[in-house]
């Protein structure tokens, strides 16, 4: 177990997300409800368990943090109020802030837009992909 590895990163993620990972009962409902399941390497329940085990670096290196739709279905349905989406967001912010680099630059965005994309998604993209 790597409980003490990445202690600072774990602390930061837990503090910025406000999530208590110990409350998780490992029922898997978050992952069962996740619409982005097929896109993600690590799924919501794995985020919770891996943060508990201190494996922030694995999560940070995975594309999963950008594949999360931030739909918050996992938070809505969790029977223990663990709020995995907040945790995913916290890991993402941890990466973006640490790198000092954004995942997407604003000028890349117009080329990715299409008519069906909701306004909300465009607005949230700025929050999700840059600091």
């Amino acid at each position, binding site marked *: *177990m790597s409980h003490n590895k990445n202690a600072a990163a774990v602390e930061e993620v837990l503090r910025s997300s406000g999530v208590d990972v*110990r*409350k998780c*009962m490992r029922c898997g409902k978050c992952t069962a409800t996740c619409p982005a399941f097929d896109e993600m390497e690590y799924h919501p329940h*794995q985020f919770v368990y891996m943060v508990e085990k201190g494996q922030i670096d694995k999560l940070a290196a995975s594309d999963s943090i950008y594949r999360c739709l931030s739909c918050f279905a996992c938070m809505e349905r969790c029977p223990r109020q663990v709020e995995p989406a907040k945790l995913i967001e916290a890991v993402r912010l941890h990466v973006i802030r640490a790198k000092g680099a954004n995942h997407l630059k604003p000028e890349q965005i117009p080329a990715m837009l299409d008519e069906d994309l909701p306004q909300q998604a465009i607005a949230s993209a700025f929050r999700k992909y840059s600091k």
Partner: protein
Amino acid sequence: MQRIGVFVCHCGTNIAATVDVKAVVEALSHEPGVVFATDYQYMCSESGQTLMREAIREHKLGGVVVCSCSPRMHEATFRKAAAKEGLNPYMVEIANIREQVSWIHKDIKEGTEKAIILGRAAIAKVHLNQPLQAGESPVTKRALVIGGGIAGIQTALDIAEAGFEVDIVEKEPTIGGKMAQIDKTFPTLDCAACILTPKMVDVAQHEKIKIFSYSEIESVKGFVGNFRVAIRRKARYVDEDKCTGCGICTEKCPQKKVPNEFNMGFDTRRAVYIPFAQAVPKVATIDANYCTMLKTGKCGVCAKFCGVGAIDYKQQDQIVEREYGAIVAATGFNPLKPTQYDELGYATCADVVTSLELERLMNAAGPTAGTLLRPSDKKHPHTIVFVQCVGSRCDAENEKGKPYCSKICCMYTAKHAMLIRDKYPDTEVYVFYIDVRTPGKNFDEFYRRAVEQYGVHYIKGQVGKVVEENGTLKVQASDLLSGEQLHIDADLVVLATAVEPDKSARGIATMLTASMDTNDFFTEAHAKLRPVESPTAGIFLSGVCQGPKDIPETVSQASAAAAKVIGLLAKDKLTCNPCVAQSDELLCNGCSSCERVCPYGAITYSDKEFRGPNRTTLIRRVASVNPAVCQGCGACTVACPSGAMDLKGFSNRQIMAEVDAICKM
């Protein structure tokens, strides 16, 4: 020929939806002897019973057939109703057309046909029914409780409080059982001794309770209401009446190297000892295996120091005979010794301990005075690994362990983990589990507290290997949720070992003719509806001897068993089941086949004088059945090669009449 009435019940739609009840009435009304036949929506209802009673009166019925649900359900109801009209209750027969017909068939035509056949069989039997009279036997108003753990203590107290005498027979020198060894109790974490020892004192002081400590059951004879039990009072070489429990002998005894079983062998005691400070009775016992005086005849130190002259090296085992109306088995359990699991290193590593051993290592009265120190080097452990399900939930075939869940381990492991994290926050605690099973009031909340508040690491997976290397236990385990193999350097490994019935239970069950399952747990008379009674009349079950259970559940069951005993002892006479076996002495050939198969010990053989030809007499060995003990199982009637054994109410003739009626199409 009997005048028979037939009553066909609809049971709402339970029967009527699959059986054409009118057709059944019509068909059965033509059977020989049937003078009245009708159907009704609910025969068991008040008005249904009135209908039956009126018919018995008006048509002068001598026999009744009710086509309805299983006799287990309402046979007693209909018998009672018939008896109110002066009809012998054993002249009522039930044809089960619900469980055996409507509930298992879909086709109305088939169902109706089968219902008619079953009705016909019942009618054929009623023709041969004889009025039976239930006998009576007296009740000895005293109960025996075998085992003085928390189960036996609670049962004894409850019976005694109701005003009946109770004897407790305990094989150890003190009552208290396993609970006395436990440190704290879940889910409230109160100290076990603090809640147990006042009860032990209550037992000792109760005028209705007599404790036979350091005693074992020698033999059991008799039957419900009238048991005769021989109790062996093992020689403890100390006069119980004289000993004041001052303990001077236990301080002066020069034999200091006896492993102390109360502390799971972690420290030593003297050859003369009192198991623990709050022992009841507080009387010393000399351990004959270690006492120098008893072994060599040279010593006598304890006798020299005893101020009241209680030491008696010449004491012998004594057999005491007592009579009882009811017997409660409360023989308890032992944790399995996990020596067969080499991979867990219990036999080879001093720092791999069982959960009960950990209780003593954490107890203020234990070998370390309550400071958690590991056995090998008496150092404080900083990383502790708990392994659950050791010896529980194993495949029964390959003898790797017990097939059942031991039920209490999840909770006591959570308790241990929580107490350790609370007292020593610098300790990392891991719990490896297959499932966490914590049903019970405030139980799951308790386990979640261990995880959420105390930060115990619960890992889904098992420990595969424990190896000692330079004082560290190298634990190799799996984390199934992340699909990783883990390697933990632990200072202490605690095995939550399976619960197994006490070894003495099997022998006691044989003496009581009480049945047991393949795991040596006592079997209850009905798993749901008679959970504290053995199938053998007058034998009751209390505590873990019936199956794994925790303290709250044990106490509930102990009180339930006491309630059943009180119900029995409150009666002056017992009504016996008249459907018992009966031997025809003229046919009996004295072969003992019936005696051997009788599970209740109801059959005895005796020599009897018979009149022979020409005014001679001859002595023959013949069987006789004690109707108070016989439970009417019928095993003897099958075993009897000469057809001498018959079951009243279920005679061979009656059964054959039923078979004939079914076959006659």
